[in-house]
Each structure stands twice: as C-alpha cells, then as structure tokens.
C-alpha cells in the first residue's frame, strides 16, 4: 500500500490508476484476439471467443460489484473511482459476447437470431441481462445522474437483478458438471452478502481492526 500511495501522489495519479485499470480490462480481449489470429484457439475459434468473452462479462460484473464492499473495507478512494469504468466494461464484454453469438455462431443469419430469441430461454435471459446493462450504461453519465436524482440509485440497483439473470443464463448452458457454475454462484453470494445491512455496517469496523493490528 505504501508504494501505491507514493504512486498516487503524482499529479495525475488517479488518471494513471484509471488508465491502468483500462489496460488491464482490455488485455484479455487482446490476448484472445491474438490467440485466434495465430490459430491457437482450436478448431472453433468463434465459440472460443464467445465462451471466453461471456465469462469475462461475468468477471467484470463481479469485479464491479465488489468495489463498494472493498471501499467500505479499506476506505481507499481508488475503488470508487473505477466503478463506472468497470460497469461500462461489463456492458462492453456482454455486448461483444452477444455480437460473437450473432456473428460467429449464427453467421449473421437474422432469421435464425429471431427464432432463437423467442425459443431459447437462456438466450432470452441473456438478452434481458444485456438490455439491463444497456439501460445502466446510457444512464451512467453525470447528466443522467442529475436528471434522475434519487431515481438514479433505484435504477442502478437493477444490477443485482442483472447478476441473477447472468447466473441463470450460465446455469442453463451447463451440460454435465455444475462445479464451475457453483464457484461463480458462491462468489456472487459472497459479494451480495456484503450488502446485507448488518454485514455492510461491520465492514468499516473490520478495517479499523486491521489498521490497529498492523
């Protein structure tokens, strides 16, 4: 933390921090793209991208949702500063996931997309989650925050529902082994548990104890 703090005393320290997060969030896409370009993504590169980006979207969502409990726990300002960015990354990954499906799996067969949309529950649920993310994305600017006032917070509580939909979407594509899904479900449950009022109240006190002990 000491090193990090020294870094943060630079004049544009928060911009640097944000830039670092931006590059880290971009990195997986670059890596997967490079793997596809160098024929290292297997015989079905489209599906490789689809699945990785989909899981990446869930990662982004879970990271976004862990920022609030993390700042309660540490009181470090940096976490709150990247919340909007990671939220938008979640939207970006989810959109790319959907785009990969339309492009690489359906081959831009729009008729097929239409029929899959109405027939397949996991796709409906995925699209609902994506629509929710779009709603949050377009209202993530200051202007919307001012416009919506108190309603902004209620609107952005949609993110909890989106997490539920994303997990349901994931659950419905499982075929033979629930292990990986259960891991993500458990992480989600933990992150949500930190928002329960008694837990949320305890988090700053935990920080105080850590602080004294060290």
């Amino acid at each position, binding site marked *: 933390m000491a090193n990090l703090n020294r870094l943060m005393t630079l004049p544009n320290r928060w911009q640097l921090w944000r830039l670092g997060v931006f590059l880290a969030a971009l990195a997986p896409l670059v890596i997967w793209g490079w793997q596809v370009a160098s024929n290292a993504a297997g015989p079905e590169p489209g599906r490789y991208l689809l699945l990785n980006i989909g899981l990446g979207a869930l990662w982004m969502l879970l990271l976004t949702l862990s920022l609030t409990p993390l700042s309660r726990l540490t009181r470090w300002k940096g976490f709150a500063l990247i919340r909007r960015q990671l939220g938008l990354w979640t939207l970006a990954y989810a959109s790319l996931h959907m785009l990969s499906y339309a492009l690489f799996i359906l081959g831009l067969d729009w008729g097929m997309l239409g029929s*899959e949309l109405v027939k397949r529950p996991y796709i409906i649920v995925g699209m609902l989650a994506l629509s929710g993310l779009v709603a949050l994305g377009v209202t993530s600017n200051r202007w919307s925050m001012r416009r919506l006032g108190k309603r902004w917070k209620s609107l952005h509580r949609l993110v909890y529902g989106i997490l539920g939909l994303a997990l349901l979407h994931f659950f419905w594509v*499982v075929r033979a082994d629930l292990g990986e899904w259960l891991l993500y479900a458990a992480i989600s449950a933990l992150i949500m548990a930190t928002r329960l009022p008694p837990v949320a109240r305890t988090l700053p006190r935990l920080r105080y104890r850590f602080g004294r002990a060290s």
Partner: protein
Amino acid sequence: MLIKIAKPHDLSESDVTPESVYLSRRRFMGGMAGLGAGLALGGPAHAEADYADVPDGDGPAWLKEKIDATRWQAVTPRDPEKDKLAPFDDASGYNNFYEFGSGKSDPARRAGSLETQPWSVVVDGEVNNGGRFALEDLASPSRFEERIYRLRCVEAWSMVIPWLGIPLAEVIRRAEPTSRARYVRFETLVDPEQMPGQRSAFSLIDWPYVEGLRLDEAMHPLTLLALGMYGRELPNQNGAPLRLVVPWKYGFKSIKSIVRISLVEEQPLNSWQQIAPDEYGFYANVNPRVDHPRWSQATERRLPNSLFSPNTIDTLMFNGYADEVADLYAGLDLRTHY
C-alpha cells in the same frame, strides 16, 4: 436438463415422420447394396502418406499388426469435396469426454492418465458365449476396416473422421445372443484415479457412462467398434482403446473406453437420458426437424471453421445415412422417440 419446457407434441400428422424416412424399398436396397459392395471390394491400398503428419501412438504390437492389415477406405463419403477429413489435431484435441472434464480441450489435456494396456471387456447378459475377453481376443478375429464417417455432435457441430475398427455385429454374433436379447447396453470404465472428471463432486453424470442400442441398430453394418483413427490406434481422449461409432446418431451415443457390453431384454437407460430426459432420448438419431430444447438442430457447424465463416451447413436426416438406416425406424414417431 435444467430447463423444463413443454415438448411440441401438438403437431399435425404430416409432421410426424420426415419425408426422407419415406424411402422407397428400392432406394434403400440400393443403398445397402452399395454399402455391401464397398465392404466386399475394399478400397484402394492405404497410402502411408495419407496420415504422414499424424503422430504414432504407442499401442500394443498385435494392434499395429491388425491396423497394417486394415481394409482401407472401406466406407468413404459420397461427396469427398464436401466431407473433407478434419485435421487429426482437431479430431483429437477438441471433443467431449466428460470423464476427463467438461471443456472441449480437457480430454486432450488430461486423458494421458488413462491406462489402456492391458484392457479387457466383459460380454454378458443374454448370450451363450459370454465372459471377460482380453481386447485382443475380442477384436482379432475380425479384419479391421477404415470407415470415414461424419460425426454430428448433439451440440450442433460436426467433423469428418476416418475410424479404424470392426463391425459391432461380428462381436455380437461371436457372443451368440439368446432369443431374449433385444438391446445392447454399453458401459465406460469407472476409475476416478485415472479419470479426473469422475472425481468432480458436482458432476451430473451418474458414473459409469451408459449407452444402448436396439439389437437391430447394433447389428447394422454401419455400426462400428473402433480401435483406431487416422491410420493409428485411438488416442486416449477419443475413447481408447475401444469405442462405439454410430454415424447416424448424435455423438454422445458413441460411447468411449468400453469395458462392458451386455445383451439385455429391456431398453437401457442411457446416461444423457437419465440426466435430462426432456433433452436427450434413447434413440438420439440425427434429425434436423427435432430441435434440442436449447438450440436448433437444423444446421451444424462443420469443423474446423474460421471466425468469419462459421461453415454452417444443413444437417441431414440420419446425418446423411438415411438410405442405409431409415428402414430401421419405419413407423416410429421420431418426434416422440428423439
């Protein structure tokens, strides 16, 4: 498995059996005659160069000898331009074998731990000549044949793979089924020490993996017990040392690493039907008109594909083997018996 959706049973009579099932007797016989001729004549001698870039395996000497004496290209695709062989690396690096994990590259990564020598197979049930047979004793009496088949996965992708093996019918005949035998039940090895997927606490499969065929399906000349592919023995991840290949059914019917073949009276409950009876049936015939509840079966992605050309092709009734097998299902409602 996890979705409960009403099956579309409310269809008109005309939807019940696909047109392609209504084959004339003549066409069917013609198809069989063609197949028979192919089997009888054999194909051109195998050129080593065909599989020059395929790595050698380390199978036992007797298996190498059997492979050398293979009747090469005993069954080949009608249209070799459309049905090009998948590269060996794709066929052996991208598949499902849940005993080794649920990812497509898990089997290739983790199946090295499978010990396939020695290997024995129990043949039991309604047979006069059952028992436990060493793999060599089970397979050696038959001449190996190379069969180039389309493999259509229930997940809507497919590959063309050159298998080496023996007709299942010959093994069943040697076992001398009794008059009570109506189905064949197959079991995969259970050994969590060697098969990490079986160690998963959250697997939905109740090991051993079980598959089954009706006796007439099992006796059909297209049904193959494979011991090799691409001119060599099977890689572990593809179901070494002995697997089933039923080219007109979804890939999950083609059970891998078989340790038991039982002739039985009752229809076996196959693993996928047990997990999700609304998604996977006993027959699992490739059928573009009956969708999986979670995706369409009308088309398939022929692999390998590339990013901007998914290589999507129409799925054929019985995976293109309708001429040979449609007769087996005359009068059967394939929508109910999916």
